[in-house]
């Protein structure tokens, strides 16, 4: 017999309500109509939402598709297409109750068969498919129930399947037979906007889905979930690689929303009454990853010397144009797994004398430190440039190799040939601890050499049923990273999203959300 151990569900309203004519989030009158144009830098690598982790894809796909669970404003897992889930006491059976009457964009009503087919496809082609490895089987006892049976305990399951990283979207079962990368176009989901056209290198156009089944269990927009109301007739996502052209387009009114505006442009436009800038802090971690396996950085004393030599504030201030905060924790404050910052001052404060002593203790003899950085992201290159100068200041010989992004990612996967690599971790810390701790654990760790204490922390995080035990595992991970100088957390990076002033009720989030906002 299944025991209801814990239930995830929205704060349910007693009755179903018709699609609201006014915006619930502010009480202001929302107005239907208009084609809103959103500019983003990159074109998605694929419109197959399940397969790609790219921000450029999420911006679009999360307007079209929905998942059983997703994240709320504070990044906590919350139901979306599910009403809730019952998790058995042994942690091996998850019973999802699906919302009824939810329609796909092709008119078909969603059932548990679609949810099962979508999850099974994800296990095969999904960008974070490893999370479904503990699943032994999916069962559909009736049209509104999906049962997920696990072969081993995985307490992070709801966190995993609610992540928007490569979202676990639900699509019609007949779409799920398609191979990776081939479900779209067209994109067929249940979201507030339906797919209209894709012009590669130009744009994706969506239109309001007039049969959209808003989730009446919520009162208002809430992160990726909540009660979503589409007001715009259509949304066009334009791909514009040149930042100056995007800013110019916003100034002239050819564009209405920018997924990001650099801080220098935001300062320049602060008096422009036609533009509103919204700052989100935090958006990402800025890190300097170290290869614990090869060359100089295989030596823990030398890694400690690097940690002591770096002026983190200088790196953050320059690489982010001032949009940063110093935060040594490997989880964001005010989140479920925040491990605290007690005792970290000694690690994060620059101390060049100490760095030189550590360098000497490490037996450093003028060998070359290889820093690899990409020129695709300005912040990466800036961070690498400043860090290399700070390391030279303590007498180290540093070689800065600048490559394009794919070459850097391929290089850093090799166990040798690099020592340091700047990386902004965007979606992983937002998701919580699993993909942060997991990044440092397993067969292909980011620091190349497995660390037994981090492996243990990762195992506990993935197996302990008690939240407090999992929190302790994150603390253990953080303490070990600092003690062994496994990697350098430089700080938290913010982001600025921007709209024309006539875009009403906009609120910044992980994607530029085009539901629950409208033209004045």
């Amino acid at each position: 017999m299944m025991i209801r151990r814990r239930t995830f569900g929205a704060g349910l309203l007693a009755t179903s309500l018709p699609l609201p004519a006014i915006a619930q989030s502010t009480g202001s009158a929302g107005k239907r109509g208009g084609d809103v144009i959103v500019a983003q830098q990159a074109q998605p690598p694929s419109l197959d939402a399940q397969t790609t982790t790219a921000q450029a894809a999420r911006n679009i796909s999360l307007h079209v598709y929905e998942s059983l669970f997703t994240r709320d404003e504070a990044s906590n897992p919350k139901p979306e297409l599910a009403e809730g889930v019952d998790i058995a006491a042994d942690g091996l059976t998850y019973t999802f109750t699906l919302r009824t009457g939810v329609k796909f964009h092709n008119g078909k009503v969603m059932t548990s068969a679609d949810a099962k087919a979508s999850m099974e496809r994800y296990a095969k082609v999904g960008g974070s498919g490893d999370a479904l490895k503990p699943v032994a089987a999916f069962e559909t006892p009736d049209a509104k129930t999906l049962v997920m049976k696990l072969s081993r305990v995985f307490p992070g399951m709801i966190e995993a399947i609610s992540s928007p990283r490569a979202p676990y979207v639900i699509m019609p079962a007949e779409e799920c037979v398609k191979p990776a990368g081939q479900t779209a176009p067209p994109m067929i989901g249940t979201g507030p906007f339906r797919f209209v056209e894709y012009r590669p290198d130009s744009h994706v156009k969506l239109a309001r889905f007039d049969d959209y089944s808003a989730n009446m269990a919520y009162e208002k927009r809430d992160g990726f979930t909540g009660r979503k109301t589409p007001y715009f007739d259509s949304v066009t996502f334009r791909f514009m690689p040149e930042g100056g052209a995007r800013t110019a387009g916003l100034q002239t009114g050819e564009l209405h929303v920018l997924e990001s505006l650099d801080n220098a442009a935001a300062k320049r436009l602060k008096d422009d009454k036609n533009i509103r800038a919204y700052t989100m802090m935090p958006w990402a971690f800025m890190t300097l990853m170290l290869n614990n396996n090869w060359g100089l950085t295989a030596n823990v004393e030398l890694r400690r010397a690097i940690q002591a030599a770096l002026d983190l504030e200088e790196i953050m201030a320059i690489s982010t144009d001032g949009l940063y905060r110093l935060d040594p924790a490997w989880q964001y404050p005010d989140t479920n797994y925040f491990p605290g910052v007690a005792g970290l001052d000694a690690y994060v404060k620059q101390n060049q004398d100490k760095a030189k002593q550590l360098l000497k203790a490490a037996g450093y003899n003028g060998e070359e430190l290889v820093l690899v950085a990409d020129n695709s992201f300005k912040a990466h290159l800036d961070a690498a440039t400043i860090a290399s100068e700070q390391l030279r200041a303590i007498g180290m010989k540093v070689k800065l190799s600048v490559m394009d992004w794919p070459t850097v990612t391929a290089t850093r996967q090799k166990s040798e040939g690099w020592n340091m690599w700047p990386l902004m971790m965007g979606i992983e810390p937002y998701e919580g601890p699993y993909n942060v701790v997991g990044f440092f654990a397993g067969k292909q760790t980011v620091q190349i050499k497995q660390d037994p204490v981090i492996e243990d922390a990762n195992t506990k995080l993935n197996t302990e049923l008690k939240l407090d035990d999992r929190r302790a595992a994150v603390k253990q991970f953080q303490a070990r990273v600092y003690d062994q100088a496994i990697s350098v957390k430089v700080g938290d990076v913010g982001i600025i999203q921007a709209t024309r002033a006539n875009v009403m009720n906009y609120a910044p989030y992980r994607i530029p959300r085009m539901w629950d906002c409208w033209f004045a």
Partner: protein
Amino acid sequence: MLRIVIPRLLGAVPVLFVVSLIAFGLTLLVPGDMAAEMLGPSATASDLARVRHELGLDQPPLARMAQYYGGLLHLDLGRSILLNQSVTQAILERLPVTMSLTCLGLGMAMLVGIPLGLFAASRSGHLSDQAAMGVALIGLSLPEFWLGLVMIWVLGVKLGWLPTGGWVSLADDPLGWLHHMVMPAGSLAIAQLGLIARMTRSAALEVASSDFVRTARAKGLAEPRVFVRHVLGASLVPILTVAGIAFGVSLGGALVIEQVFSLPGVGRLVIGAVLRRDWPVIQGGLLLTATVFVLVNLIVDLLYLWADPRLRGR
């Protein structure tokens, strides 16, 4: 004419074969693949392996090579992983954007550059000659992307005369197309204008000292008529040569301009493919570029025959 066309086309075959070899070799030599791009830096090894297998990226090099050349023999450039469509179709969809941008830019450059060069030659040694060549030198020295950004700021943001980017099809709306293309083509033209003006001036000065030009002047023809009728006609061969070179340079410049003005042309296709390691598109783009260069050279050779009747009998 066929005596020129056929050997040139046959000569292009080994060139294109070498280009195809280089294009395929790049897939083996350059690090990175599409799966890593789709999954991001924190992807696990098994997620990467699974998606690589799903996308067919884990096939051995020889199998990929056989597939690639098998496709080429059937004029099939392969299938884009990024776009989920055939490379030929992807290129053909974008070719009108790139070719219209290049041709309009080159057309504008020739329309201004040739008269400017002739004017400078006719005023050789005067202040106006130096001023004209100064303008040409400035145009030649300015990078296209910088010019493009300045034009966006001035003509788009400050004056609001022209759109800051985007594309309208010529077939759908000719005026809209022109409205959107003036700035990108203009920024390409300014750079090429300098090259064409300087070459025209130099060719015109050489011809201007010829006996037949002196005879034309002795007949009492007005100086503008001497330059347009006699000097320009005899200077066409070197001008065509430089126009052919300018076309190639403009094509390269168009790749950058497409990025700046968000135009969905071949340049953006190829740059996007390079950044995501969509190898079939990169290979197709290289072959296309080589083919266009071969064809442009051929067209220039044929234009020589039109411009200089003495060459027709050779």
